[in-house]
């Protein structure tokens, strides 16, 4: 048992050193109309099959109501901690932030997302606000395959080309 601990501790320490904390916030940014909620997060960039700890803090800028959060994860991202797909927080005047933690992992390198669709029930109307928390696994390259092709125009400008639906006929 001791030997196991001795061997595992440095390994875990190295893994811990590799985990790069990433933070982000929407606080103070210009935003479109929506639910009066801001968000900040802390994630760890980890290797594939390792566990990334995610801390998400929601900051409603109103003093009461029920904050409802719908969580969705990219398909390739596995949720280790078990929290529901819908979270509810009762907003009270004396509490400004509402946090929750989750752990995720992925089997392949990539840049994945945890998406949050938020709203505040009771008195604030139907407005929603969407957030996305990036989770970097390994090299963290974007997984989106774009339907467009990058080219240069005759003037040297970068262009992103999509195929048009076209009909051709001769003028009689």
């Amino acid at each position, binding site marked *: 048992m001791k030997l196991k601990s001795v061997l595992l501790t440095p390994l875990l320490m190295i893994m811990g050193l590799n985990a790069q904390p990433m933070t982000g916030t929407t606080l103070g940014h210009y935003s479109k109309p929506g639910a009066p909620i801001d968000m900040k997060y802390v994630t760890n960039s980890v290797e594939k099959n390792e566990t990334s700890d995610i801390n998400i803090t929601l900051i409603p800028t109103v003093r009461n109501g029920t904050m409802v959060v*719908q969580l969705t994860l990219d398909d390739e991202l596995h949720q280790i901690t078990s929290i529901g797909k819908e979270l509810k927080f009762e907003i009270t005047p004396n509490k400004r932030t509402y946090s929750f933690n989750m752990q995720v992992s992925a089997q392949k390198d990539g840049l994945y997302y945890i998406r949050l669709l938020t709203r505040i029930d009771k008195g604030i*109307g139907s407005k*929603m606000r969407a957030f996305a928390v990036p989770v970097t696994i390994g090299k963290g390259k974007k997984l989106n395959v774009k339907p467009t092709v990058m080219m240069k125009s005759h003037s040297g400008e970068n262009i992103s080309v*999509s195929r048009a639906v*076209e009909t051709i006929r001769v003028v009689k």
Partner: protein
Amino acid sequence: MKLHKFYLSTLLLFSSFNLEAVDILGTIYYERIQPQHIGTASTLNYSNITKERAKEVLVEAIDSVGNQVAKTFTDKNGAYQLQNISSYSNVKIRISAKMFKSNRWDVKVIDNNDKDALYVIEGGFANTGSKDSIRDLTASASNKGSAPFAILDSVYQAMNKMINVDSSINFPTLKVNWSVDNITTGTYYDGEENIVLQGDQKGDSDEYDGHIVIHEWGHFFERKFSRADNIGGSHGSNEHLDIRVAFGEGFGNALSAIVTDNPLYFDTFGNNGWNMNIEDANHQTPGWFSEASIQRILYDLYDNKDENHDHLSLGFKPLYETLVGGQKNTSAFTSIFSFITELKKISPSNTDKIDKIVANENISTIENSYGSDRISNVKESALPLYQELTINQTLTNICTVNSYGVYNKLGNHKYIRFTVEQDNTYPIFIEQSDGRDSDPDFILFKVSPFEEISVRDSDSAGVESISLALTSGDYLLDIRDSSYQKKSCFNVSIGDVSEVDNSNNNSNENSNNNGGNHTSTVGFTLPKNIFLAILLLFIVLFVPLYFIRKELKV
């Protein structure tokens, strides 16, 4: 024989003309995924895709080696005609998500996640033959090719609304940054020449949400043609907002309804989303601090629907003239108070009707741009909105509160007005009077012409100060507590006051001096106590000499 030759050469000449040039004409379309509204929920209805005309966009004929052989722009019906293209040549048609007209507009939609590439759609190479041909092209929703054109169409609609009331308007360059990789960016206007739009196909995307695009374009318009003192931050309809935020966001919402002549504002997130009726939404927390009230007022002033409180149909022109005239030059912060005050000036015969529309939002008659004489239906310390300060005197008990939330909510900021009679250097000193747990910061504006003079945002606990050379004129000071304590009260002084403490001036200095007239003189100021002054001078002068002497000896 001669006649025969003449006929032959004429025939050859005509046939050679035919060989040299043909025209390609047609119409450019894009597919738009229409919204579906059920109650207050709005989603994109993927089974309701309409074919719309791509107006005023760049069309090019490209030959097989990539050269442009002809170019034009579609008209307002999406029609184009490319002229004088070589017959029997292989060309393809390229349509760019770009509108350009000299002295009118310059707008393009680019991929901010991929080298700022301009979005284009292309047809296939086809031989031009010997006769004019028609090539109709459609940007498809299935490969996202239509998204940039849907965005551009919303911008076109907004610009056209302005052109209808001001034929000489010339829009500055605008780049709309949209990408399927805009997942965490949010949707916003950057204050310069960029609008950023979400494009997350698994979450929030805004390319088909016309009201959102126009709302953001409204911020661009406000910044470039009117004045936007809006400080940003998250916001919602039924909140008590800072008056500048309430007006800016309410204006954006109202403009989207005015431009589209559709008061149903919606924001879709694929299979989720919401909507609000700009005109008929419930009055949950009406007031001058509410963006919902602002949008209802502006829309009621514009529309031609009579209601109990609304017997006015001004159309857009007076609103536009107020925005680019009085509202731009107001000596107060931009708010519903400044807007209504200026609107009444250009439409004096409608004052009573304007007041009635405003009153419907629980706002008492607006008499001036500062919102004086408000009826106190808001929480403690939110009123008065502006307080007047006299140079060389201290204004006490200026309190910020977070009763309605933080950052951009009503009561988070306090506005101080003062007038400088003589050009001079003035210390500005703000000190918390009820503790040391706050972080007071401020921004100073000169009001005519309106410009930001100085930003002070040091982390000093309970105090903020600076000395500035100010020219004569009227000023506005925007004070906030950046630590957003429940309540923080301050003493504010400008001018010759003995308690100015310049020890804080070294921390996080961020003074903006716009123009040569305003020179920051932050730095060393002798204390008024003569003994301390002599002691300080002694230290400054003799201590370095001691060390220099010591060095020389070595």
